């Protein structure tokens, strides 16, 4: 089935004109029709628009446009509902945006369109990317393709589930504290969070401006390298994007990892770590040693403070970022006698419980008299956390950890206890605070039920090429990425 193939497999077949972009897109649409009733990765999608883009790609292929010119020509790639696509709905998994249609494209969308991709669909997510299970979406829950009674992870749960269920060849998600890597781990696909500043955030509805990054979900490492190459680079519309040259990430996948040093942080052996997850990660570490990498014990001493720091910094920024959803210029308005009443009613009715909780927490930590105690202190601790990583990277090329302490949990299992949910992000959160790069890739399965386990590699700022090289060498020496979820087969 075409929708199960990777970008590299598909581009060679499209180039040979073995298959058409229309057939490929249709295969994805058929799969959505077949499985999305169960998975519910998509909030919505527009088949006619996707097929029109596919036809346009076929015309270009017929006219001799090459993959060197347009590296994603005809490849169907679905988009998390937090990224603006011109002429399409943008809801961020929330009721509050109502019937909002974006009048502009995010920079990553412009880049994907310029690369020829068939950009389609609105992928489900935790409301405003606030959550680790996709259960806070106003558009219903997304189910894990490996076990539909379980969550797909979050916040980019739809992006991960769609790739795992072969409903799209690849997807884009966003990662503020693990929202790409954790769902990738829980759904058994590859998820990459680039270095802060690597990919333009213009058109990404901000949750926490200093932490958010856009990244790809793919079926394998090579596809992640391809997609990262397309979406990376400096953007004059984003003051925080960095003018660092974009290397050829695919060329970095040469298997040459002998002598590279992998750090194993002692702080990541926490109490809540599931034994099967620990065993899978231990095996991956052994595999790396067998492949010639050098394993080094390291320490990231401030790890234990990362979750607390994160929930101050992220909620403070979010409290201001989400102030614009007020029912004045767009979105679902609940009228009032005066503007204040309009605001409180609109926002009271439009936001879900988790978003309200985080906005109120963020408002509180910034409020008069508390700024120094919370926000300023958290920013200082953030410095300590970042320094932990910069010190570690003096010794090692990358850091190896589990992505999440457990495999996918049951729907509803943690939704009553926000703090427990927050603590499940312990392995992914520091990466965003430090602004470094990170990737999650499959490293095994739990026995019963059979659920994917993710391995996380953390890399230096702008160290994505090394990260991809390391991930690729492991992937090519293990069978995990070839497995498909049985429940939806």
């Amino acid at each position, binding site marked *: 089935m075409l929708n199960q193939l990777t970008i590299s497999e598909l581009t060679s077949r499209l180039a040979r004109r073995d298959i058409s972009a229309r057939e490929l897109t249709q295969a994805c649409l058929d799969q959505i029709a077949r499985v999305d009733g169960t998975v519910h990765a998509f909030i919505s999608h527009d088949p006619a628009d996707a097929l029109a883009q596919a036809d346009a790609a076929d015309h270009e292929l017929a006219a001799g446009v090459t993959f060197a010119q347009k590296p994603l020509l005809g490849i169907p790639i679905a988009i998390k509902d937090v990224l603006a696509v011109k002429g399409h709905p943008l809801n961020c998994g929330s009721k509050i945006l109502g019937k909002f*249609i974006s009048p502009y494209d995010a920079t990553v969308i412009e880049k994907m369109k310029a690369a020829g991709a068939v950009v389609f669909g609105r992928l489900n997510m935790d409301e405003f990317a606030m959550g680790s299970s996709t259960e806070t979406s106003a558009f219903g829950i997304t189910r894990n393709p490996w076990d539909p009674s379980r969550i797909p992870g979050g916040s980019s749960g739809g992006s991960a589930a769609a790739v795992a269920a072969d409903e799209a060849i690849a997807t884009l998600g966003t990662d503020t504290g693990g929202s790409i890597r954790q769902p990738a781990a829980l759904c058994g696909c590859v998820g990459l969070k680039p270095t*802060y500043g690597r990919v333009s955030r213009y058109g990404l509805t901000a949750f926490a401006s*200093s932490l958010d990054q856009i990244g790809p979900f793919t079926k394998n490492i090579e596809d992640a390298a391809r997609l990262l190459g397309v979406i990376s680079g400096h953007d004059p519309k984003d003051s*925080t994007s960095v003018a660092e040259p974009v290397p050829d990430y695919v060329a970095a996948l040469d298997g040459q990892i002998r002598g590279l040093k992998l750090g194993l942080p002692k702080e990541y052996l926490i109490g809540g770590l599931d034994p099967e997850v620990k065993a899978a990660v231990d095996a991956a570490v052994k595999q790396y040693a067998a492949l010639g990498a050098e394993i080094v014990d390291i320490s990231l001493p401030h790890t234990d403070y990362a979750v607390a*720091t994160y929930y101050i910094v992220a909620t403070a920024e979010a409290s201001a970022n989400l102030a614009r959803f007020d029912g004045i210029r*767009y*979105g679902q308005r609940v009228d*009032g006698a005066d503007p204040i009443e309009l605001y409180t009613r609109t926002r009271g009715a439009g936001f879900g419980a988790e978003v309200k909780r985080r906005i109120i927490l963020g*408002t509180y930590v910034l409020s008069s008299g508390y700024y120094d105690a919370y926000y300023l202190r958290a920013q200082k601790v953030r*410095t300590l956390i970042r320094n932990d990583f910069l010190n570690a990277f003096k010794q090692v090329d990358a850091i190896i950890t589990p992505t999440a302490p457990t495999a996918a949990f049951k729907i509803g299992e943690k939704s009553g206890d926000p703090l427990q949910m927050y603590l499940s992000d312990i392995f992914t959160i520091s990466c965003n605070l430090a602004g470094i790069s990170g990737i999650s890739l499959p490293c095994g399965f739990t026995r019963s039920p059979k659920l994917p386990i993710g391995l996380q590699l953390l890399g230096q700022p702008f160290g994505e090429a090394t990260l991809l090289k390391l991930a690729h060498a492991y992937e090519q020496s293990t069978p995990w990425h070839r497995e498909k979820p049985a429940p939806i087969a």
Partner: protein
Amino acid sequence: MAATDIDVKYVAHLARIGLTPDEEVKMSAHLAGILGYIEKLKELDVTGVEPTAHAVPMVNVLRPDVVRPSLAHEAAMSNAPAKANGLFLVPKIVE
């Protein structure tokens, strides 16, 4: 570090979020738990530590003073919940 009790009603008003009495009660309990956890930052000595606002430090990121096309008026107003005479309508603003 500050006390962990929080006047949810006041803060929700600052954030312009209407809460039902039931939501207020639940919110208070959850926030007390989270703020209690956050207290652990107090353990650290941060004397002399510079705050990090951005993980990738840069300065003077500016744009040249060049005019670019605006949105067409219809596109600018297309998502407006209420509009008239080219304006976004709101309940009467009383100063």
